[in-house]
């Protein structure tokens, strides 16, 4: 359960102050699938940063369950991200020098698991995205869709409460986009995740239960689809 209470985020750009989020109040119950849409520069990524505990708001409160993201110290935020939050990025963000298997394992490194336990869970996660036979491949040896699958495996291997995705299909063709969305939706259903996807693509947004629009830092609710 996310609770946002009058969350404001301002950036000090070179010349003027940018208000990326303006007094946003919002709650997202556990297990909901939310699509966030809006024009470029509207504040979508900034909102995702608040939800993902990547940054603290300038003012206001953000809580996930009983953790107050807006008041935790950096290392406590890192711990929270390591345990509860999975990320999927538009450009996959795999570590280029690590194999698919090792990339998935990076998500387990902060959890202090034994090496063989880590290896086994990463293998299972890769198998669950259909890449059981690609564990030893480097990212450069995989297609975009395959790289995003590896990234999804990396996000989910730790069994997070929340999966946050910033334009997860933005770099993929339509067929691949649908595959990835099918995969995400399956996990969302099977694991009872809270799934929050930032997207420009209404075909993607249409799949979500709830759609939020952000424009100039202000959030408005779209149609609730069930």
């Amino acid at each position: 359960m996310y609770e946002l209470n009058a969350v404001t985020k301002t950036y000090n750009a070179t010349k003027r102050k940018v208000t990326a989020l303006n007094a946003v109040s919002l709650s997202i119950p556990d297990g909901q699938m939310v699509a966030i849409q809006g024009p470029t520069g509207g504040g979508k990524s900034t909102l995702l940063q608040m939800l993902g505990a990547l940054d603290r708001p300038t003012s206001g409160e953000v809580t996930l369950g009983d953790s107050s993201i807006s008041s935790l110290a950096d290392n406590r935020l890192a711990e929270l991200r390591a345990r509860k939050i999975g990320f999927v990025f538009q450009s996959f963000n795999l570590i280029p020098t690590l194999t698919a298997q090792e990339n998935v394992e990076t998500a387990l490194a902060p959890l202090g698991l034994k090496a063989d336990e880590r290896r086994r869970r990463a293998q299972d996660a890769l198998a669950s995205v259909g890449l059981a036979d690609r564990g030893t491949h480097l990212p450069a040896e995989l297609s975009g869709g395959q790289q995003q699958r590896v990234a999804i495996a990396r996000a989910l291997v730790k069994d997070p409460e929340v999966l946050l995705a910033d334009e997860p299909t933005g770099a993929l063709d339509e067929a691949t986009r649908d595959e990835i969305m099918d995969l995400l939706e399956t996990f969302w259903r099977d694991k009872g995740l809270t799934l929050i996807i930032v997207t420009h693509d209404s075909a993607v947004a249409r799949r979500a239960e709830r759609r939020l629009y952000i424009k100039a830092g202000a959030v408005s609710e779209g149609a609730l689809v069930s």
Partner: protein
Amino acid sequence: MFGTYLRRELFNRRKQTIIISIGMALAIALVIVVNSVSAGVQSAQAAVLQSVYGVGTDISISEAAAAPTAGATPGQFAFGSGSGAASGGTTTLNQSRLETSRTVTAFDATQLDTVTATSGVSAATGTLALTNSTFSGQLPTQSGGTAGGTGGAPGSDTSQTPPTGGADGAGGSSFDVNSFTVLGLDPASVSVGPLSAVTLSDGRSLTATDAGTNVAVLDSSYATSASLATGGTIDIGGTTFTIVGLVASSGADSTTASNVYIPLDVAQTLSGNAGKLTNIFVTAASASDVDSLAATLKTALPTATVSTEADLASSVSGSLSTASSLVSNLGTWLSLIVLAAAFLIAVLFTISGVTRRTREFGTLKAIGWSNRRIVGQVAGESVIQGLIGGVIGIVVGLVGVLIVNLVAPTLSGSATSAAATGAGAGPGGGRGFGAAASAAVETTVTLQAPVTLAVIGLAVLLAVLGGLIAGSIGGWRASRLRPAEALRSVA
């Protein structure tokens, strides 16, 4: 994870690893070569000094001569009427003098007791450095039946034949002047001082029981040039000595501190220097206390010149001293500059690597990596790059040292002989034969650069240090990256 990630980064970003490592390797190889050559030059200097001052001499004490006083005419031969044996119209003269070089002053032997009693002195021995000059020749008897005059001839050669005949009335005369250095030393304590550094090449060395007896040990190269051998005799100050042994310098192609060595008490008596010494050789109890001990001795012996080994080393001249200053100046600076450059390269490449991997580190932070883990990763990469450079550098450095040792350049150096310490300030030749004693001992040594474990340790330390510096700067940069960088779209 740490190890896997480290390995993959180093291997898959080979270019960066290679550049940083090569820079480090060059610097470390240079440090090793400079260090080893410098140690080699130092031991070469020590070898030159040892041939003069002996092994383990930390401090040497002497007293410079006061300005010659009018009336005193040492070094002159005086032949009165009746001197020599006349036969067949010529008088054969033969006179031998044994005295201290006019450039040094013999001081009271009680100073040795003062030195020995000083705390911090482990051993001390006193020597008496003398010059034996022999005048022998024939003069025609027709000019009054006597020949007077001083035997002093200009120049400082050890042997010379003045012109025969001339306007001085000595026409038809033929004489020969010969001088060699004699060192009187305590036969009971030859382990300190000049005889400690020599090797016995024939017969025996002086022993405690030789005190009071007329026995001599000769420098082997002097013996060869003077056609003398063990078992033979040598005339010193008009007394016949039995030659019991020959000694040679441990270093090749060099002579020892003196031509002839005799027991100290005999030397004192023969030269009229009873109870006197010209030099004291001191071994300090602790090498680190040499300077303070020298200062103490200076206070205790106000009229003496107290020289430490470092002072003596500066008296070494020749190509050895050129090499020494080359290594200590150019070599040290060069290795410092290259080391600084290598560190700078490592730092700059690490910073640029971290900047290039902004999104990578942002992503790792976004998925929950702590700052500590990321700093550790960056620092680990740098330290390993430094260590790889260190290992390559050690190998290259050892090859460099091997080449130096195979080429084995010879260096020559000379240090002023102990028999005439302070002679540089003396008036030189011109009035007598004493100048011969101030001849510097020329020593040729082959440069051997040793590699010590300490140098290898220093190399490893520098490699780790370079890696740590680059790693902590890079790690600091990485720790300041915001996890939100992960969301930044691709450049």
